[in-house]
């Protein structure tokens, strides 16, 4: 029993010694592998002798570096290329054999050689990155160099990853060109818009001068020569005066339409109840004359250009009064609902971001098929003899609503009145941002 124990202690000690030896050998091997002294070991394994090399790992990295889309170059202290992957060679459009052994500086344009030398010097002590241009006989290649100094075959080597920036640069250049073109076009558009507005403004002014004279002298003629003029002459004179008046309306409407093109919107809180009250005062005479009834609901306060919104309501009320039925007292209803979204059939919501304003009349109406027609410039559904007007009023209305980022729609049946729907944002926050973004774009030119 004791002998057995002794023996087992001895055998255990021997086993321990054997294991220690194996451990020592393993540590030696690991060191050798780590320091690159050996690149293969033979291990006596269960399947006989087996050869283990670092090839597995090393090979993967070699393949990885070869397959990289970036170029890889290693330089010695003198800047001679010790190694490069095929990607770098193909970047330069040269065989690898001609690249290896060549000074890197040979691929650097004359004017950049000094800065590259400085970059290399710096990179030996710390990692650097820099965009440079390389060249070969016929090629200029923009690249990004990422430089790291590493031990390479027991010597230090400067390892460089070379990223080809040709496509990036080209894209960037295209983007810049396109941007410049866009800015240029934008500028031209602004100019032409401005010209057009100037033209309309000047034309309207200059057209008004002779027109005013026609009105003045017709007036004088009519008042001072009443006795001399024949009845027919007086009738002709009346026609001249009526035409002049219509022309005056036209010119003023063209002028105010053209002014709307100017990008000069100033928004302020506008109480639509006040606007309507003012307008009813203005229309007092015709309201009395036509015995019109105007029912105004509670209207909201919205952010808007006061003058423009007033013009919209003026056009709406004036149209409703104008296109009334001859045998029926006009009833005009103006009401408003807040909506959740910019959609005529949107859901109502108290304090919603949009408001829908309805202007409903009991006038002659029109066929629904003309609903888009009536907003076009100079479009009229009735002869100017039966209903006066320039045919610009609703175009102005539409343009103003659109300038407020709103929508306009009309529902009507011939003979059964019309209902105009104005959908307007309560706040002009979006519009203001858009305007300031545009200014920004122009400002940056």
């Amino acid at each position: 029993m004791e002998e057995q124990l002794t023996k087992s202690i001895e055998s255990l000690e021997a086993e321990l010694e054997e294991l220690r030896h194996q451990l020592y050998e393993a540590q030696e091997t690991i060191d050798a592998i780590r320091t690159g002294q050996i690149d293969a070991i033979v291990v006596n394994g269960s399947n006989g002798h087996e050869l283990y090399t670092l090839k597995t790992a090393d090979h993967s990295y070699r393949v990885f570096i070869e397959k990289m889309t970036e170029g890889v170059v290693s330089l010695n202290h003198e800047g001679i290329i010790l190694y490069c992957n095929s990607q770098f060679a193909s970047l330069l459009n040269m065989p690898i054999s001609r690249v290896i052994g060549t000074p890197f500086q040979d691929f650097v344009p004359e004017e950049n050689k000094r800065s590259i030398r400085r970059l290399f010097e710096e990179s030996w002590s710390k990692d650097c990155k820099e965009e440079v241009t390389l060249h070969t006989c016929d090629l200029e290649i923009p690249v990004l160099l990422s430089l790291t100094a590493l031990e390479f075959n027991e010597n230090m080597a400067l390892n460089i990853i070379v990223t080809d920036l040709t496509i990036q640069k080209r894209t960037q250049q295209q983007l810049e060109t396109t941007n410049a073109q866009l800015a240029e076009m934008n500028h031209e558009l602004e100019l032409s818009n401005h010209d057009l507005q100037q033209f309309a403004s000047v034309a309207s002014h200059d057209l008004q001068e002779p027109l005013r004279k026609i009105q003045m002298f017709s007036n004088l003629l009519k008042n001072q020569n009443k006795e001399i003029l024949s009845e027919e002459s007086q009738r002709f004179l009346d026609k001249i005066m009526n035409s002049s008046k219509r022309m005056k309306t036209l010119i003023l409407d063209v002028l105010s339409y053209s002014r709307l093109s100017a990008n000069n919107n100033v928004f302020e809180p506008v109480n639509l109840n006040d606007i309507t009250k003012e307008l009813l005062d203005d229309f007092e005479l015709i309201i009395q004359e036509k015995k019109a009834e105007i029912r105004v609901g509670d209207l909201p306060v919205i952010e808007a250009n006061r003058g423009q919104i007033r013009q919209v309501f003026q056009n709406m009320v004036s149209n409703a009064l104008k296109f009334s039925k001859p045998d029926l007292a006009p009833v005009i209803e103006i009401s408003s609902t807040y909506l959740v979204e910019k959609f005529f059939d949107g859901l109502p919501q108290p304090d919603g971001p949009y408001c829908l304003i309805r202007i409903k009349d009991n006038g002659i109406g029109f066929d629904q098929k003309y609903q888009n027609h009536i907003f076009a410039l100079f479009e009229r559904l009735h002869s100017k003899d039966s209903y006066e007007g320039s045919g610009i009023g609703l175009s102005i209305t539409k343009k103003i609503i659109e300038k407020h980022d709103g929508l306009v729609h009309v529902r009507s049946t011939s003979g059964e009145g019309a209902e105009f729907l104005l959908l307007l944002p309560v706040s002009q926050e979006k519009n203001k941002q858009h305007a300031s973004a545009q200014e920004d774009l122009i400002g940056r030119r």
Partner: protein
Amino acid sequence: MHLRKKILLAEDDQDDQDFFHDFLHEREDIFLLPIASNGEELLDYLASTTELPDAIILDQNMPKLNGLQTLQLLKDTSRYSNITVMVYSTSTDDSLIKRSSLLGATLVVSKPSSYKGYQRMIDELIRHL
């Protein structure tokens, strides 16, 4: 009745000069000074007279010195800066109104197109004297 208000007009258009004279010379509350046909003539006249007008009416579109240019010169000259100035033009837009009031015009109006219009324009001007 107090003294007639002396009114000086600068206007290059012959017809408008005639309207102004014909429609207004019979009014007893005003006295029309000789009409100048542009801003330069108006300033020459003012420099040569000892009796300054109570009000000046400037047409905007005139050769040599237009309404606004003349207005600025008037307001920059201490001798004239207290004279009430009205700018009138065939079409008055926001920009003209804004610039005129910035330069110190008391009134900006559209040229009248009738006898009555002229009377009303002068009534309004006199209210501001």
